[in-house]
């Protein structure tokens, strides 16, 4: 009697415990995780297929994680569980955490070890400085690079008597006023959470420090300085323009993004990445004529180079030699002139090498629509050689710092907070974030 109790009880428990997971072993494939979605994601998938078709030794498996944030988060989760991909696409915000973690294999080391000759000096210095050590050695493979541009509706500008592209913010203000007077509801589409184009790029072009230590390159003890320079006035200017209805709030939360409003012809000027140049061409409504130019400067200011955006490909530690060979082969593949040119044709991303750009220029790529205008991105990136405050931003947990600035901008635009106060608060919180980061990696040096 007792026995049946036992057995039944034991059987029940055993049945209940038969959930067992077995980790799956990796094959000779290797994985590449990226943070692009929609059209751009499909372009990546096509590129992966081409790589697989071009050789028989390695098979790349490309997985979209929808956006850069998700990709960073998922890559970290996978890394902690020892299930990371071999190649991952990390954008500017996630770079410093990765750099200090030592969880990656420097790309120069990888390529040299596998016998590939790459001319590292061929990469645009603005691009490579973002992803290199302070001594200039590239750690990640540049892939999709962009910068922020200024888009404008040519018909609307002509209608108020302005020829060509606006070059200064003063001109932008005048045009906006004229547009408003002429009955246009939305002269400029403005998303206050667009810190990349409206804050970071502005600061670089006007050579304003975002943080000390050369925007963080010099060490982890940097403090932010965006509340001390021209950006305070710029934020005040945004507020003035918004109050007068010259800049109109457009964002996902508002129901229509700035880009959508622009391509639908509802708004006449906006700022976005050059990567969107291709999508705009596809999406612009019938009858909407537009063009692109470099971001404006204030009159009398010397223009400096803008910051590179986009992301680079990082090789993660903890994979097998075979997988690394595959990754090296893949990097070599995307660096082939034909492949790189194809990438810059089908997307708005710019060529990452000098020779690549020259070749496309010589072939007349930038002479006519739909590609005309993209060469201005290179112009923006190379206006001056990268300087102390224009070679990039190297701050720990930069994503969180960006959030603070975005909150400050929103607070000024939505709630009418004084710009200096809002930025001072953001600076205080950002510095706390940076100090916490510094403490977490106590004693470590930036590469």
């Amino acid at each position, binding site marked *: *009697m007792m026995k049946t109790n036992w057995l039944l009880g034991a059987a029940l428990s055993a049945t209940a415990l038969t959930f067992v*997971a077995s980790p799956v072993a990796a094959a000779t494939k290797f994985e590449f995780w990226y943070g692009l979605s929609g059209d751009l994601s499909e372009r990546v998938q096509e590129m992966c297929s081409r790589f697989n078709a071009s050789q028989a030794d390695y098979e790349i498996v490309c*997985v979209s994680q929808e956006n850069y944030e998700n990709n960073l988060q*998922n890559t970290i*989760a*996978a890394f*902690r569980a020892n299930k990371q991909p071999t190649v991952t696409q990390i954008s500017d915000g996630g770079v410093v955490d990765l750099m200090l973690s030592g969880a990656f294999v420097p790309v120069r080391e990888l390529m040299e070890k596998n016998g590939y000759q790459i001319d590292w000096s061929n990469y645009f210095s603005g691009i490579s400085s973002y992803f290199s050590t302070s001594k200039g050695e590239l750690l990640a493979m540049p892939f999709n690079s962009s910068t922020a541009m200024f888009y404008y509706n040519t018909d609307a500008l002509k209608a108020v008597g302005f020829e060509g592209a606006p070059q200064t913010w003063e001109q932008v203000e005048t045009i906006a006023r004229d547009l408003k007077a002429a009955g246009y509801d939305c002269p400029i589409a403005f998303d206050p959470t667009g810190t990349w184009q409206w804050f970071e790029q502005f600061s670089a072009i006007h050579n304003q420090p975002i943080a000390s230590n050369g925007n963080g390159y010099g060490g982890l003890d940097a403090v932010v300085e965006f509340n001390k320079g021209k950006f305070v006035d710029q934020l005040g200017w945004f507020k003035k323009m918004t109050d007068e209805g010259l800049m109109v709030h457009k964002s996902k939360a508002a129901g229509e993004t700035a880009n959508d409003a622009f391509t639908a012809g509802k708004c006449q000027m906006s700022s976005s990445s050059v990567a969107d140049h291709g999508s705009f061409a596809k999406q612009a409504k019938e009858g909407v004529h537009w063009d692109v130019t470099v971001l404006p400067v204030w009159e009398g200011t010397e223009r400096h180079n803008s910051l590179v955006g986009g992301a680079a490909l990082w090789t993660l530690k903890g994979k097998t030699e075979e997988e690394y060979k595959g990754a090296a082969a893949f990097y070599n593949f995307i660096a082939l002139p034909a492949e790189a040119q194809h990438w810059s044709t089908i997307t708005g991303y710019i060529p990452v090498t000098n020779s690549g750009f020259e070749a496309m220029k010589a072939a007349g790529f930038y002479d006519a629509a739909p590609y005309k205008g993209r060469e201005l991105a290179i112009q923006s990136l190379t206006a001056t050689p990268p300087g102390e405050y224009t070679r990039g931003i190297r701050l720990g947990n930069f994503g969180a710092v960006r959030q603070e600035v975005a909150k400050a901008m929103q607070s000024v635009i939505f709630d009418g907070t004084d710009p200096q106060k809002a930025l001072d608060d953001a600076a205080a919180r950002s510095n706390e974030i940076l100090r916490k980061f510094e403490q977490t990696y106590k004693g470590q040096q930036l590469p």
Partner: protein
Amino acid sequence: MIERSPFFDALTYAVMIIGLILVVIPFWVVIVAASQSLQEVSRVPISLLPSDQLWVNLSEAWARADLGPKMLNSFIVAIGVTIGKITLAAMSAFAIVFFSFKARMICFWLIFITLMLPLEVRIVPTYAIAANALLPFQVILDTFGISWLVQAVSGIQVSLNWNLLNSYTGLILPLVATATGTFLYRQFFMTIPDELAEASKMDGASAMEFFRDVLIPLSRTNMLALATIMFVGSWNQYLWPLLITTDRANFGTVVMQLKALIPAQNGTPDWNVTMAGALIIMLPPLLVVAFMQRWFVRGLISRDK
């Protein structure tokens, strides 16, 4: 109803109709928007009359969010959690209520502390062990020298590694770990008169036979209620699958896809497809609740007696 009161009756019906409208409006808007074309759904305000694009939108949503495999994953997870919870909860409640053993109260409290700590509140801790859930056992084995012993004797290295990423067990087990089911069963078992168990004992039946032949049949309503609650609850899980699934194509659940369906940047604001997707995703738990209503209600209420 005790007396005739036409005014009050009218008021009653009025209130109920208003309530009906309040409750049904979101459903109605979803159905209507899902059946409209892009131009119709972009009109502000949208027309409250359904149009004819329902099937088109449903197929588009199905394809865009890749709902087929995701539905399957959601089903597997929901059924896994349901079965797991019902079995474990019945067994544990049975042990706590009907047995006297030394650590009874400790076990009771160990389990019931988790009663009100749903996964969302425990998200960081659960994520912290996702990399290797068996680490405590590994540590125990290492500290007591057992793994060393095993290696010395047989040359086999003991390495317990169980990570929860991208697996059904990773999706299911953290949800089974709370005490809601055990609580429900415990409340029910407490209402079983002692005489029933005594009688069973006198008939010579063992504890497990009592469990199988008397308790389980009696707790049918409870089981159905718990099954409904668990199915709906685990189908609707959002945060945990989001964090634990890096291979969305194969292990994503259906509810995770909702955000992917919201009109994205650089895309057309096609809310009609979004609503169609929402409709598909809402349907299974709704059907379960509507179908199981009678038992579900009875089972939910009895826990309070």
